[in-house]
C-alpha cells in the first residue's frame, strides 16, 4: 500500500510541477472586509469593553472584520487584480457600510 501511495503522491507532485510550468503561478488573494470608519461596529465595541474589563485599559477603535483567502484562477496579476476588485464590489463587501483591501500573492 505504501508503494502505491508514494507513487500517487509523486504523480500529483509531477502534475503540479508541469502545470505551473505551463500556466505560470496561480495568483492567490487575501482579502480584508471591515465596516467603514464612522459606522458603529457593535461587535468591536463589545470586544473593546471585554478587553477593558480584562485589564487592557484604554484600548480603542476595535474594528471587527472578515478575512477571505482565495485562488483567483488567473496567472496574470493585472487581470487577477481586476477580478478581485470586481468580486469585492459585487459580493464580498457591501460598499454602503463596508470597505475592503486585498493583497495578491503568487
Amino acid at each position, binding site marked *: 500500500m505504501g508503494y502505491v501511495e508514494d507513487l500517487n503522491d509523486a504523480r500529483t507532485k509531477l502534475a503540479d510541477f508541469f502545470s505551473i510550468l505551463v500556466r505560470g503561478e496561480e495568483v492567490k488573494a487575501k482579502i480584508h472586509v471591515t*465596516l467603514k470608519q464612522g459606522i*458603529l461596529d*457593535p461587535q468591536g465595541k463589545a470586544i473593546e469593553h471585554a478587553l477593558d474589563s480584562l485589564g487592557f485599559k484604554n484600548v480603542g477603535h476595535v474594528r471587527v472584520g472578515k478575512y477571505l483567502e482565495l485562488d483567483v484562477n488567473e496567472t496574470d496579476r493585472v487581470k487577477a487584480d481586476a477580478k478581485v476588485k470586481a468580486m469585492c464590489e459585487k*459580493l*464580498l463587501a457591501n460598499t*454602503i457600510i463596508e470597505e475592503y483591501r486585498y493583497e495578491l500573492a503568487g
Partner: protein
Amino acid sequence: MKIGVVVFPGSNCDHDCEHIFKDVLGQYVEMIWHKETLLAGLDAIVLPGGFSYGDYLRTGAIARFSPVMGAVKEFAKKGGMVLGICNGFQILLEAGLLPGAMLRNRSLHFICKDVSVKVENAATAFTSAYESGQVLKIPIAHADGNYYTDPVTLAAMQANAQIVLRYCTPEGKITPEANPNGSLDNIAGIINAEGNVLGMMPHPERCAEAVLGNDDGKLIFLSMLESLKGNKKELKMVGAG
C-alpha cells in the same frame, strides 16, 4: 389574486406567508423555488423571512444572486408589488431594490419579541387599510435589523414619506428607548420611491389571526389585496378605453 412566495434555501417563514394568503385571506398562492427564472401571472411577490444561505457573508448577500432574483427585479421594475419581510427585507437591500444596508443589532443579541411600530405612512399600497399614526403590536426576530443609510438618502426618504414603519413606545412616541436594534431614525420598514416595493423587519404574518391573540399584521396583506384590486380595475379601464 395570485401571490408568489419565494423559497430560498433557509427560508423559514415561507409557509406562514402562504397560510395567511391562502387560508386566512382565501387567495391563490404559488411557492416559487429560488431556481425559477420565469414568474408568470403573479399579482404580487413575497420574499419571506428566514436565514437564506445560512446568513453567510452578510444577511441576504448570497440570496440576492439566486436565479429567481433577476425575475423579481424585472417584476418590480414593471411596477409589480414586492413585499420583503425580515430576511426578505435584507435581500431587497442587498439586491438594491431598496436603499441602505443592515448592521448587526446594537445589542449584538438576536431579538425575538413583540415591539410597537407606528404606521407613519398609511397612503401606501401596503398600509392603506391602517389609520395614519396607528400603533401596531408586532413581533421582530432578527440579529441584523439595525438599518443604516447615508444622510443624503435618509433625507430623501424622509422627504418622500418612504419611511413607512418606525419603532415607537406603545403610546406611539418615537424614542431611542423604543428602538430595539439601533436602527437609524427608528426605521422598521421602508418603501421605494415608486411605491411598489416594501421591506419591513417586523413579521406581520406572525400576527395576522385573532385566534392567535393578535391580528395587527393582517392589514398589511389586506392593504395589498385592496390595492391589487384597484390596479386591476385601472388596468381594465385602460383596456376598455
